[in-house]
């Protein structure tokens, strides 16, 4: 080469991002813990700026707002908190098998509403006609069936026609909401409110409803863990979720697994609806599930298909939600503040996964440079 090509020299980039696959499990959880704690601290700091109260005081308001005064023997607040957690957890657990199968069920809201509707119809129509011991199983069966049917419709379409399950399940929510609105219109007698009825799976007064609702969800948590980890069904779900081709190769009937799993997913949503309607509210309205069906998607995602991690994450998020609402309430902030608070924390928890999967290499870190 006679002519020298003059090329503008570039410097090495300031940093480049490198994929990593080698983080030990305790470091992974360390990163996640730091993300949770740091994001909470930042949000507490921001709230103390907004309210003029110190950070310590803000945390105290949150704590009192959620747990009340346990040390003085008042467990009412604690039970309320646990019940809230249980309901959200129940919805998240319902989504977990579907998510493990990579079937993005966004229809927990509608499936739970339909389950709740099933319970409500039984409660109104059969109250006084059946003894409680018979009515409770009837309510349970009907709500599970309603939820399962609402869940299996998109699954059938997915299995037979390969429709997009995300959109399908999402749209089913709106249909469910309108059905509830119609039912409330009929039964509410023009007032658009159904007066609470006495029938249900738990008495409407006293603390016993908390025990019942919470224990149902604790049982579901253990069953879900065992089902996913130790049953043949759970194994099939993982194989279908990881690779349809492998499932086909070893002779798993993929369509059957999709339909079966969504029956289960919808059924557990139905149970959540039953807890809400027959256990907690003893009435139904379009806002009975109140968007928790969507929050549950986040919880199932954060739980990474492990029911116990899901339970842990749900407990944290419900605490923050209630606590931040209390801060907003007692310091005259807009109620949307609680949503912002929780949104930021969830964003940080999800975002920290980036630092688990990738690392940065800076310019100066190269060895051997002069």
């Amino acid at each position: 080469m006679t002519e020298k090509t003059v090329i503008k020299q570039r410097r090495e980039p300031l940093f480049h991002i490198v994929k990593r696959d080698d983080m030990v499990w305790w470091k992974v959880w360390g990163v996640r813990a730091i993300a949770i704690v740091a994001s909470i601290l930042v949000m507490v700091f921001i709230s103390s700026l907004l309210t003029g109260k110190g950070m310590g005081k803000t945390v105290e308001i949150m704590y009192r707002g959620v747990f009340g005064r346990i040390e003085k023997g008042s467990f009412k607040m604690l039970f309320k908190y646990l019940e809230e957690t249980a309901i959200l957890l129940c919805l998240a657990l319902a989504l977990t098998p579907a998510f493990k199968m990579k079937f993005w069920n966004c229809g927990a809201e509608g499936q739970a509403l339909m389950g709740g509707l099933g319970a409500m119809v039984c409660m109104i129509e059969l109250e006084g006609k059946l003894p409680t011991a018979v009515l409770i199983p009837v309510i349970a069966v009907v709500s599970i069936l309603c939820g399962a049917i609402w869940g299996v419709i998109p699954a059938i379409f997915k299995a037979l026609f390969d429709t997009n399950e995300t959109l399908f399940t999402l749209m089913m929510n709106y249909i469910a909401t309108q059905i509830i609105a119609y039912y409330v219109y009929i039964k509410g007698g023009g007032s658009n409110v159904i007066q609470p009825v006495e029938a249900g799976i738990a008495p409407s007064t006293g603390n016993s409803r908390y025990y019942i609702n919470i224990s149902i969800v604790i049982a579901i948590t253990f069953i879900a863990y065992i089902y996913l980890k130790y049953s043949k069904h759970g194994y099939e779900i993982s194989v279908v979720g990881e690779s349809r081709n492998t499932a086909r190769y070893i002779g798993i009937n993929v369509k059957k697994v999709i339909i079966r799993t969504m029956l289960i997913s919808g059924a557990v949503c139905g149970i959540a609806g039953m807890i809400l309607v027959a256990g907690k509210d003893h009435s139904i309205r379009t806002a009975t599930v109140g968007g928790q069906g969507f929050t549950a998607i986040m919880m199932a995602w954060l739980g990474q298909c492990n029911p116990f991690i899901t339970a842990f994450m749900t407990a944290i998020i419900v605490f923050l939600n209630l606590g931040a609402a209390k801060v907003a309430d007692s310091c005259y902030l807009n109620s949307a503040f609680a949503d912002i608070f929780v949104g930021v924390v969830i964003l940080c928890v999800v975002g920290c996964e980036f630092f688990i999967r990738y690392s940065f290499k800076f310019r100066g870190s190269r060895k051997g440079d002069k």
Partner: protein
Amino acid sequence: MTKQPAIELKNITKRFGAQVIANNNVSLTAYHGEILSILGENGSGKTTLMNMISGIYFPDEGQIFINGQEAVIASPKDAFKFKIGMIHQHFKLVDVFSAAENVILGIDEGKYNLKKSAEEIKKISEQYGFDLDPEKKVYSMAVSEKQTVEIIKVLYRGADILILDEPTAVLTPQETAKLFDVLRKMRDDGKCIIIITHKLHEVLSLSDRVSVLRKGEYVGTVNTNETNESELTEMMVGKKVSLNIDRAEPKDPQDRLVISGVDCISRDGVALLDSVSFTARSGEILGIAGIAGSGQRELLEAIAGLQHINSGEILYNDPKSGKTENLRDKTPVQIRELGVRLSFVPEDRLGMGLVGNMDIVDNMMLRSYSKGHSMFLERKSPKDLAMKIISDLEVATPGASTPVRRLSGGNVQKVLVGREISASPTVLMVAYPVRGLDINSSYMIYNLLNEQKEKGVAIIFVGEDLDVLLELCDRIMVIGSGKVTGIVDARSVTKEEIGLLMTKSGEEEKQND
């Protein structure tokens, strides 16, 4: 020697994560007017090294000199400025564009003048002896033509340093010879050609010098005319390896699987298999040769019950009962329930044969998990099987509970083959079983297949390396565009004869007339 160094690498190191060192302190030089082979086994860091020259990766340590000047190559655009062109293993072309359109794609200098570019392309083609119509659309091209477009693309941009990553993997022997002629012409024209390969005979017939990498380390460079296959292998593997594959005479071969007139038509109406008929015999290895995508996958999947066939019969002669079963239109589960012991090592190991995110134990269960009436899984015997395979086949893994995607290609294949053999099959189908494997692992797989052959298993071996097929198989069936173009005795046939059979159908037929 008056040769000018075109590119010099000094102490290049590249890491992925803390444990994977793809290149460690590699230094090498390539001159203008020479063909340099980079030789190494899969995973030895050849492609990573070349990707750093072509701007896809950035080295963690070390320097690159182009024509004697230090160069920082941070993007493929930079590489292009330094007149470096890389031809990747997987082509990067737009299907609906013509050859000329693909060539000028992304060049922002000068006016868009397709006619002038087409003339330029013709000129380049004539200069080096390419055979290419600039107007032809990429989707109607054969693989070798697409490769030609890729090469002309970098030449058109004025590349002086050409890097070819495994260019012969997709070519027939005849096409390979043609490519080598072109590359020699370019060398004589003063260009620097770097070719990445793991095929020894190609290295010896083509290149001037060979640089060998082993496990990311630079081993050394030798002049091609001063070396031989066994020396190169020793450099590559680090120890002496015997390169002979044993081939015993088949013992008492009996017809095990009789395929007759199998047709298979895709959803778009394309014939994937066209009246395929053959017989697989017990105690024999039947090789299947053909250009990639000629219907090999569909054929194996049809036998395994995964691909619907439109006509024809797949008959299985049970060695125990003596009965004959028709496997057509049966699902894998139904085939298993008939007592047919059919094992299948598919081409896509992690996407079909195994589940990458599951550990070895759970992958062992894939075949057997549904046994028994319990609702729950039984993990004891899969665990024993996993431990046995790990120790028998020397699988390098931290333990039985490591996800298989973390294992290297060879170990993944050992796990899969181990599982399929553990079912003591009567028919064993393997598709590209040594693709991406190092020499030692490859030979272990050949030995396992030979052991199965000794046991009287009918083996169907779909392969791409003709040298291996010729040494390992008893008979070789060649397919082209879904048709059987010949079944030959592997002991007497030559590579060239198989190469001719491979192209002897479909569009190629017209050209041969």
